[in-house]
């Protein structure tokens, strides 16, 4: 079992080590994920219901939103 995990680790290690174009692509992926999850998610895309409704009262909050928007 230990040998198997070592072989898997060595497979990925060598794969990443031998990358050329892949290094650039991984850099793009990491920058993109950082921007998405650290910048956009936290500062621009909070969960609206969670930030506007009290904990446990989310259904009441959305219910009020939907009922109050009834067309005149």
């Amino acid at each position, binding site marked *: 079992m230990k040998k198997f995990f070592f072989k898997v680790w060595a497979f990925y290690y060598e794969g990443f080590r031998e990358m050329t174009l892949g290094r650039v*692509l991984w850099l793009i992926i990491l920058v993109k994920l950082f921007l998405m999850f650290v910048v956009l998610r936290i500062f621009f895309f909070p969960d609206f219901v969670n930030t506007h409704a009290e904990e446990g009262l989310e259904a009441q909050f959305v219910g009020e939103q939907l009922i109050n928007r*009834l067309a005149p």
Partner: protein
Amino acid sequence: MKESIDLALIDWSRAQFALTAIYHWLFVPLTLGLAVIMGVMETLYYKSKDEFWKRTARFWMKLFGINFAIGVATGLILEFEFGTNWSNYSWFVGDIFGAPLAIEGILAFFMEATFIAVMFFGWNKVSRGFHLASTWLTGLGATISAWWILVANAWMQYPVGMEFNPDTVRNEMVDFWAVATSPVAVNKFFHTVISSWVLGAAFVIGVSAWYLWKRREQRFALESMKIAAAVGLFAAVITAWTGDQSGYHVAQHQPMKLAAMEALYEGQKGASLVAIGILNRTENGEIDPEKPLMAEIEIPNMLSVLAYRDKDSYVPGINNLLQGGFTLPDGSVALSAQEKMERGKQAIAALGAYREAKKNQDETRAAAELKILRENMPYFGYGYIREPGDLVPNVALSFYAFRVMVGLGAYLILFFGGVLFLSWRKRLTGMRWMQWVAMLTVPLAYLASQAGWVVAECGRQPWAIQDLMPVNAAISSLETSSVQTTFFIFLFLFTVLLVAEIRIMMKAIVTGPEKDVETA
């Protein structure tokens, strides 16, 4: 207290969602399409042991890898938008969306992340058979991911398998298989995924044509074109067939979308399909409902056949759908928009009264209100519609996008047939004009693919969920300026990604397939 939603907020939020979806969809179809073509090429290597096929497969895998890396996770931004901009919708759909997207996330991670590593790192390290299996499983993983996303999308167009719970204000899944295998979901999956093979095939032919035009890599280019043309022709024909099925489903479940796609204002028996047409606008710029087309070439009875599989069947127009009173295929009489709006208002009022009664522990009244809510639930969303005209989507956009999609689809069938024939006759090398046609077909394939989504998504407006929730109820009460800010952030971010993709890919194409290519 009545709450009024700013129209600008709705428009900017829709524009932001459309922008994100359009950019995301630049990457996805190429991933799905290239996966099949490189799988075929590696299969040829596995069977022939000819190193040529290994090099060929590795080259297209490299382009696949670039596209995959740049496109990966761009779809997650859509989920951010659900939670922030469309929070009522996000809450209302409940686990209907949660379950498919969770399955998609797990599958995407385990299948794609595992097998894509073997595909790129495993040459000469694992057996040829295991490597081939990993290549196909990478494509299968991406395809299965697409399945669950498309199930979620199909549910918005044709909501089934759920029951609305007024206590939680959520739809709860009561029949997973009804959601996962609804006819709309199944057909949407095949139409979308196989049309992506069309795009992948057009891309491979276009890139290969560039090599022929540059008079280099001739064997590689010709063999790639042959395989891509065969895959593309098969896929384009199946896409046309599943497109016909889509038209049938739209007629059954979203008749207003069909009427908008055809600019059909007055219903007809034995209705014709407009093959080519120009919309007729009045002086104020609106489409003239009396004479919506100024010039057209029609296919007689074809719209009736498409919609109801009967050349003499009645297809309702926009005015008929608003006025109601016509006989539906099941023999019942169609309600007018006004009647649906009244029933929708009753449903929403009953929801409010039910929740109030529950709060006051008045179970008798709660039961009575629940009965009213259940009876009127199919029209729930109509209660948010202010006037019947709001139920009509953008006719010009739906009409022209549909013609772009179908027209280019027909062109692509001819194109792939032509490339296959010329490839068989070994005439592609000397036909310089055909090489240009092939290169110019790449953007046309993208245009067709995007036009398909425009028809599907713009044609179903104003609905976020068909008949149950229009966009003005689905949206969060945000500041319009904050949506504008994130719109431009995304525009910048996605444009940077797209430019990076094009630059890296162009560099890889110019380098070309190597005798002994590097590890990706």
